[in-house]
């Protein structure tokens, strides 16, 4: 059976499983559509949250970004897990106690203002849509590869699948389907990593293998990696090269953003009790950590394997020849990925060999001149292909490659579906039912939810054709937006009785707009390429990249809210009582709709 057929078999079988579960648990009433009837056990909920959370950014993109940068991209690892601490300590139990369905309902009630609710909806839609763009980038890479078509065709096919999938059921379908997706994606991520860790270090646990010894050379794996990447003129893998201030801000933005994203917070509305909301965040992080502890091993080991592949005789020997790439089976992956347009090479100096090195490095330029090299010949290696190509690079059995295909799609689909659900509930429940037409029928509400999904995915697909960065980088922008707008409002709503309606609205608007403008100045207005005035290599403010600005946006939000609240009318007593009651677990009943 060909690899193509095996991939289709794995992807097809996993899809049949998800759709089967979605039909079995099909949502009926609106309450089921949003919050799955609140009968979800913390462990189950944790697993579904993990699937919802770990998107194309975590599965497809993150290890690639770590592999090619090393230590400096540790921010992704700390940021996307550290946010759960904030979520568990500062938000989840109180929002569950409050007992409504959506984040914006909480903001609307706590800040006793329809305007606050609508502003929150706008913030949610902006952050979630940006997030979906990142997912679509990952979907395009995955579908492009497994259907062996161009990245663009893959993206368009993927968009149709995501839409059909998300429209199918509500959260109940999504909750149990996401448990299945978690199982598929974690197996798909860890099994190849275990194989590769065994090959390179003899240790079956990749997280330990990363700090173990490289079998072939007897040196510690990371020391070996440091040595060979430096021989090719790249930065030492484990060393700190990036700007420290920007790294701290970036990590903080990802953490705060994690605790401000609606599709994750919504998960904690679906557990039966306040105590369960606390445990749920912990269980979610257990399941997330299984992937996040493996990811740095995947990155480092893949970098080692790729370098070995390009320099089969060692970095001081001869580079791989064009003939080898074209004829040897272990280089087949290069030709398949070349079809997607995301990997390319060119024999610039016509010596029949492909030299891969850092041609920006002065020392390497001198060495290249001496050896007659005319620049790096591995001309394109999109970071987002690394995880998907990894099992082929390591020459693993074809069923493992099929499994990774299914896992990558599970990751992208589950998150895209969760986000589309958050967007559609924001539009139909908060905007239309809450503000525009309170008397809308249940049917009308469900219909408007689906229309909102269709619009969101169309916009995301269009922008996904020219994404503002690799999947994980685009997703990081979404985190910055959530960090600057939603998280501060939620936190102040629970921890301070002083912040009033005007303060919260002013804070959210200030945080969102300043962050959005900073991002657009660096990534182009509405992400249209070429309309940017600055680049992340030379940002407007010192060393602060657009992906790191969320933490500053959050600080602006807090400051503006505090100042404006101080200058306007005090919070009424009944709202102070509401805040008091949210803080105490006692008396948390079932959810109440308006």
């Amino acid at each position, binding site marked *: 059976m060909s690899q193509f057929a095996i991939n289709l078999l794995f992807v097809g079988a996993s899809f049949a499983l998800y759709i089967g579960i979605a039909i079995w648990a099909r949502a009926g009433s609106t309450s089921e559509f949003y919050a799955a009837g609140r009968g979800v056990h913390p462990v189950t909920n944790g697993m579904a949250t993990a699937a919802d959370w770990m998107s194309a950014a975590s599965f497809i993109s993150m290890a690639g970004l770590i592999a090619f940068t090393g*230590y400096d991209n*540790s921010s992704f*690892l*700390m940021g996307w*897990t*550290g946010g*759960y*601490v904030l979520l*568990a*300590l*500062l938000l989840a*139990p109180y929002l569950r106690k409050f007992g409504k369905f959506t984040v914006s309902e909480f903001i609307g009630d706590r800040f006793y203002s329809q305007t606050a609710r609508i502003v929150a909806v706008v913030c949610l839609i902006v952050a979630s849509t940006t997030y979906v763009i990142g997912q679509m980038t990952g979907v395009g890479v995955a579908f492009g590869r497994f259907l062996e078509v161009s990245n663009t065709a893959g993206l368009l096919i993927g968009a149709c699948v995501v839409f059909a999938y998300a429209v199918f059921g509500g959260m109940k379908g999504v909750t149990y389907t996401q448990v299945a997706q978690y199982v598929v994606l974690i197996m798909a991520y860890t099994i190849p990593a275990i194989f590769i860790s065994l090959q390179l270090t003899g240790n079956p646990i990749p*997280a330990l293998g*990363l*700090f*173990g010894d490289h079998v072939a050379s007897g*040196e*510690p*794996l*990371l*020391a*070996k990696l*440091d040595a060979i990447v430096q021989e090719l003129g790249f930065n030492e893998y*484990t060393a*700190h090269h990036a700007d*420290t201030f920007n*790294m*701290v801000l970036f*990590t*903080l933005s990802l*953490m705060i953003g994690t605790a401000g994203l609606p599709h994750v917070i919504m998960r904690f509305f679906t557990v039966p*009790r*306040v*105590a369960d909301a*606390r*445990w749920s*965040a*912990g269980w979610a*992080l*257990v399941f997330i*950590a299984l992937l*996040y*502890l493996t990811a*740095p091993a995947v990155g480092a080991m893949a970098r080692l394997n790729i370098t070995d592949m390009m320099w089969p005789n060692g970095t001081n020997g001869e580079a791989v020849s064009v003939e080898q790439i074209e004829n040897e089976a272990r280089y087949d992956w290069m030709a398949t990925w070349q079809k997607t347009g995301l990997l390319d090479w060119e024999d610039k100096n016509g010596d029949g060999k492909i030299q891969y090195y850092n041609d920006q490095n002065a020392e390497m330029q001198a060495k290249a001149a001496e050896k007659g090299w005319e620049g790096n010949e591995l001309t394109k290696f999109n970071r987002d292909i690394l995880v998907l190509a990894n099992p082929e690079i390591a020459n693993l059995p074809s069923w493992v490659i099929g499994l990774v295909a299914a896992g990558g799609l599970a990751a992208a689909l589950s998150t895209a579906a969760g986000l589309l659900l958050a967007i559609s509930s924001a539009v139909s429940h908060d905007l239309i039912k809450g503000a525009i037409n309170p008397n809308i029928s249940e049917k009308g509400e469900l219909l408007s939810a689906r229309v909102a999904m269709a619009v969101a995915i169309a916009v995301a697909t269009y922008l996904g054709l020219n994404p503002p960065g690799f999947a994980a980088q685009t997703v990081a922008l979404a985190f910055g937006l959530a960090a600057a707008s939603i998280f501060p409002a939620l936190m102040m709503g629970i*921890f301070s009785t002083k912040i009033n309606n005007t303060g919260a609205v002013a804070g959210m608007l200030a945080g969102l707009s300043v962050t959005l403008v900073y991002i657009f100045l660096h990534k182009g207005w509405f992400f249209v390429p070429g309309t940017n005035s600055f680049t992340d290599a030379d940002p407007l403010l010192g060393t602060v990249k657009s992906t790191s600005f969320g933490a500053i946006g959050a600080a602006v939000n807090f400051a503006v809210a505090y100042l404006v609240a101080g200058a306007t009318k005090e919070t009424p007593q009944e709202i102070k009582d509401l805040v*008091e*009651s949210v*803080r*105490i*677990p*006692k*008396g*948390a009943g079932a959810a109440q709709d308006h």
Partner: protein
Amino acid sequence: MADNSSNTAYWSANVRIILISLVIWALVSFGFGILLRPMLSGIAVGGTDLGFWFAQQGSILVFLALIFFYAWRMNKLDAEHGVEEE
């Protein structure tokens, strides 16, 4: 609802636990993982140093411990103050 002074005591105990947890949270990630890494560079771990381990794995393990500690501690605190759910 329980009387107000008991609720205030419960809330300030909660805030204290949160603050202690967040200090540890920041110390292992921003501290050991990034800013204090040069200070930990003498401690070798598998071909690199302890700061690298904290940045890529250690902080995640501490985060996990923190969340479970908080859930356990708060469920106990709820009972102590009689504010647990029925």
